[in-house]
């Protein structure tokens, strides 16, 4: 009965979402407050209904109810509880439900944030969000229904794809979805603004927290996915320029540009049209990612659905929302009031530079991802656009951006002093050069560009730190004054510095990849293998039985030079239900570096193939991403988003009632 209640709740949510997408819009058009406030009620109701449906599906998974087709296909009674839970979104239907759940959660949050959003904007946004919800609810119910029943119930499920049975995968999709779906809210805000024909600093201020929230989660989600690929796929790569990864990178880039352009809009009332376009494009790219992943045009770990009907449905959703919003944009954008002009050398000018570069970078990824797909569709030729393309196009666009980043962040609003900014960044630049030179000296004969990358990273981190220091200590004398200024600095300034420093850390980690080394050998117990700074000694190989898998576990002693680190275990598992092998890499963290051991095939002579990598400073890649997210989160707590909540003003009797319509 629980299953059916969940199913019915989902169907009800569809009806509620239809009301949510129509009535508030009417209210906005007719200035009717009662109608407009239906949006909030509908959004909250819709969320509760979808949450009920989701809870029902989770219950079915936890109880191994094999009368539900979706549970049979993706679960197994011997799975540990945590993987029974993650199986819910480890498949197409369940992940669609999670997608809709997060969509409606965001809708409900907007509905409940009464104090920070003017009602008109809130109603328009909820209506647009309601339309997106209708589309995805209909898609879920009609083509990907997770509540389909199977009678008689089979005795056992087919288990979740083993490489998804991992804690990283437990967290990665929800984080990513919060990111993707979060951008649906900025999209809804943009559509609401276009329909209403009003866009101003109020709009920018209202959108900014949502953009930041989505961006923070998307950053974490991508980083988590990358770390998962690094340790689960067993060959130590952390980014593959795989179309599915690019599908998440594109909205991230567009979202990054959006965060920066909303600042300009909020502070200076400029870049309005561009910001609206970015908001639309960011979510469009999220939808495109969904289409690529779920339409079956690709095959990868991520592609669940190969049903052409689903692909067609998503394509229709894509065309409707992207085409519809762009048409609306073309129609209404000329009506928007343009903001003020500004000098090229200023904080806002720097942010425009940022937007131009990031948009270009996003375009290169877009071309590199879609060109092969389109070519294959048109001519049937399969070409592979891999790392060489992206290294040759993406990085040259990004490097100049990173080089001017510290300059831009120390420029003042309206009219900056380029020379002053250059002087302020000089110290950081010098430090970067110094570190680069020192690295070249220490690794003479090694990679050529990598030390420059390290220098760039140091420049970014130092630039962020020095800029912060400058703001705190200028004109202040004595520690108490500095302390009070530090406290007085808005959190968004801290957030900016932190996020930019995070970029620097990631750049250092990525540059250091050039020094990673790999060694392959066949080891018997007692034998050793050395790669870079690390040496492993195979202690023993033993079988082990897990709840739903069997494993061959190899235990290694790890040495860095003469220093012994904690031992590490690497394993090859075979999941019984699908008879599928996975590798579990053994990773020993040593400061910011890692020794990475992966097992290969056992050999006839009793040895086992072992690959050992030395990954210097690799952790910085993800630490950088986490620091970036922290910066975003810190900005999110900025006073202005709390204070800016316009105090509710009792509606004054407004002058001149219009003649009745």
């Amino acid at each position: 009965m629980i299953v059916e209640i969940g199913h019915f709740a989902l169907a009800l949510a569809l009806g509620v979402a239809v009301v949510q997408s129509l009535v508030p819009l009417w209210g906005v058009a007719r200035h009717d407050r009662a109608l407009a406030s239906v949006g909030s009620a509908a959004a909250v109701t819709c969320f509760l209904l979808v949450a009920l449906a989701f809870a029902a599906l989770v219950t079915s998974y936890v109880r191994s109810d094999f009368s539900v087709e979706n549970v049979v296909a993706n679960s197994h009674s011997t799975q540990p509880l945590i993987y029974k839970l993650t199986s819910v979104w480890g498949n197409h239907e369940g992940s669609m439900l999670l997608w809709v759940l997060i969509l409606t959660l965001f809708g409900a949050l907007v509905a409940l944030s009464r104090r920070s959003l003017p009602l008109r904007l809130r109603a328009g946004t909820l209506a647009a969000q309601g339309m997106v919800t209708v589309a995805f609810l209909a898609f879920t119910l009609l083509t990907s229904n997770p509540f389909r029943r199977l009678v008689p119930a089979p005795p056992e499920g087919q288990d979740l794809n083993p490489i998804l049975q991992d804690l990283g995968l437990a967290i990665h999709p929800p984080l990513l979805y919060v990111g993707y779906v979060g951008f649906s809210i900025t999209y809804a805000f943009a559509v609401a603004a276009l329909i209403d024909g009003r866009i101003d600093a109020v709009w920018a201020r209202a959108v900014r927290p949502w953009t930041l929230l989505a961006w923070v989660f998307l950053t974490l989600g991508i980083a988590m996915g990358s770390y998962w690929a690094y340790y689960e796929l067993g060959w130590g790569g952390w980014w593959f320029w795989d179309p599915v990864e690019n599908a998440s990178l594109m909205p991230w880039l567009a979202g990054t540009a959006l965060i920066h352009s909303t600042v300009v809009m909020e502070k200076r009332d400029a870049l309005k049209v561009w910001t609206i376009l970015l908001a639309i494009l960011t979510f469009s790219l999220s939808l495109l990612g969904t289409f690529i992943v779920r339409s079956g045009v690709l095959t990868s770990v991520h592609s669940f659905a190969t049903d052409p009907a689903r692909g067609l449905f998503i394509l229709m959703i894509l065309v409707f929302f992207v085409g519809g919003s762009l048409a609306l944009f073309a129609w209404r954008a000329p009506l928007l009031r343009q903001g003020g002009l500004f000098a090229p050398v200023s904080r806002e000018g720097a942010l425009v530079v940022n937007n131009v570069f990031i948009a270009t970078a996003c375009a290169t990824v877009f071309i590199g991802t879609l060109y092969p797909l389109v070519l294959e569709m048109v001519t049937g030729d399969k070409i592979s656009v891999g790392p060489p393309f992206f290294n040759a196009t993406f990085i040259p666009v990004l490097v100049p951006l990173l080089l001017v980043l510290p300059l831009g962040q120390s420029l003042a609003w309206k009219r900056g002093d380029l020379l002053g900014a250059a002087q302020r960044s000089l110290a950081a630049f010098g430090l970067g050069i110094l570190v680069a030179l020192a690295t070249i000296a220490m690794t003479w004969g090694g990679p050529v560009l990598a030390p420059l990358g390290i220098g760039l990273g140091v420049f970014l981190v130092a630039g962020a730190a020095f800029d912060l220091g400058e703001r705190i200590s200028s004109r202040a004398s004595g520690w108490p004054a500095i302390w009070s200024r530090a406290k007085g600095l808005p959190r968004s300034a801290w957030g900016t510095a932190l996020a930019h420093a995070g970029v620097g850390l990631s750049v250092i980690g990525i540059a250091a990849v050039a020094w990673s080394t790999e060694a392959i050998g066949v080891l018997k117990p007692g034998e050793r293998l050395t790669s870079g700074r690390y040496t492993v000694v195979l202690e023993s190989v033993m079988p082990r039985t897990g709840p739903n898998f069997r494993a061959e576990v190899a235990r290694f002693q790890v040495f860095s030079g003469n220093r012994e680190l904690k031992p590490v275990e690497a394993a090859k598992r075979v999941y019984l239900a699908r008879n599928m092998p996975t590798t579990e890499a053994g990773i020993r963290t040593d400061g910011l570096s890692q020794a990475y051991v992966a097992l290969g095939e056992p050999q006839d002579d009793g040895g086992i193939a072992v690959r050992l990598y030395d990954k210097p400073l690799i952790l910085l890649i993800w630490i950088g991403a986490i620091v970036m997210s922290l910066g975003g989160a810190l900005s999110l707590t900025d006073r202005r988003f709390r204070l800016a909540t316009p105090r509710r003003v009792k509606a004054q009797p407004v002058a001149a009632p219009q003649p009745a319509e």
Partner: protein
Amino acid sequence: MLIWIIFAVMTGVSVFALLWPLGRGRSLAFADVGDATSLYRAQLGEIDRDLARRLIGPVEAEAARAEAARRLLRASGDDAAPAGETESSLRRRRASSALALSCVPLLALLVYGAYGSPAKPDQPLAARLQADPSRQDFALALARIETHLAANPSDGKGWSVIAPVYMRLNRHDDAATAFAAAIRHGEASAQAYAGLGEARALAAGGVVTAAARESFAGALRVDPKNARARFFLAIGQEQDGDAPGAIASLRALLDESAADAPWTQTVRQRLARLEAETNAGGIAALPPAEQQAAIRGMVEGLSARLKAGGGTLPEWMRLIRSQAILGDKAAARESLALARERLSQEATAAAALDALAGELALKETAP
């Protein structure tokens, strides 16, 4: 029934939640102007703070203040909304209520009606396992053994229990795996080896492969009299083209086994077919008269066997056709009648026999 009550309550609550804001008395105008004012006031404060922190120059700050003020003026001039309850606002509310009241239940019923299964109860695994074992379905019992074996893969006894079950379910690959596991874990009986061979042969579509042969040989090492292994090895000989050898092996098997052993029937049939085929090969070489006699003998043999009992539709049809071709119409009619009687249970038999009778012009006298 209960479930429909629950659905009704859910629908009612949802619709009520939508109607509630519509019914809440006075229709207020938007408070946008107030919102805008407080925002710009905050913005002016921010400009002051930025100025104090030297994030913005004094001249620029002045300009920014002026800009903010202009925006404020624009915002307050923008919007003049009607207030109070008018007739049209009442009408709008009624229309919205009607939409919520109709759209939500209708859409939900339509979609759920098309895809839902309200009559199907939940079937959590724990509850199914606790159910009375006699009512438990066979598949579930099998699954329990499988789960047990997945956890205790060295239980040879368990493997030897489940392997024949797989054979019966025609899951030959699983059966081969299970027999092999049983052999590995201390159940290396002749039956297990022979079963492994049979599973391998059936998995290969009935061909006694080298791997299957190896298993049968293993069975004979443990028990040289193992009938299954000898039978399949004979079939292997036949598949190699050594028909006489196969016949000799099967005869030896028949001679050595007890008359009431369960496999004698199968062996005998196989032997008969083999001999018939071998003979058919030989008949072509005989002079015409003897050829005719030999064929007659074979047909009579078949006739006698079918009259004694058993016989499938193809066998009956072969007999009737042979008798008709040999010119013995009376015998053919007799066989036809007998076949109709014997095969009355089979749905397709009557039609097939009618067609055959028409083809061979064996018009029966009406019964």
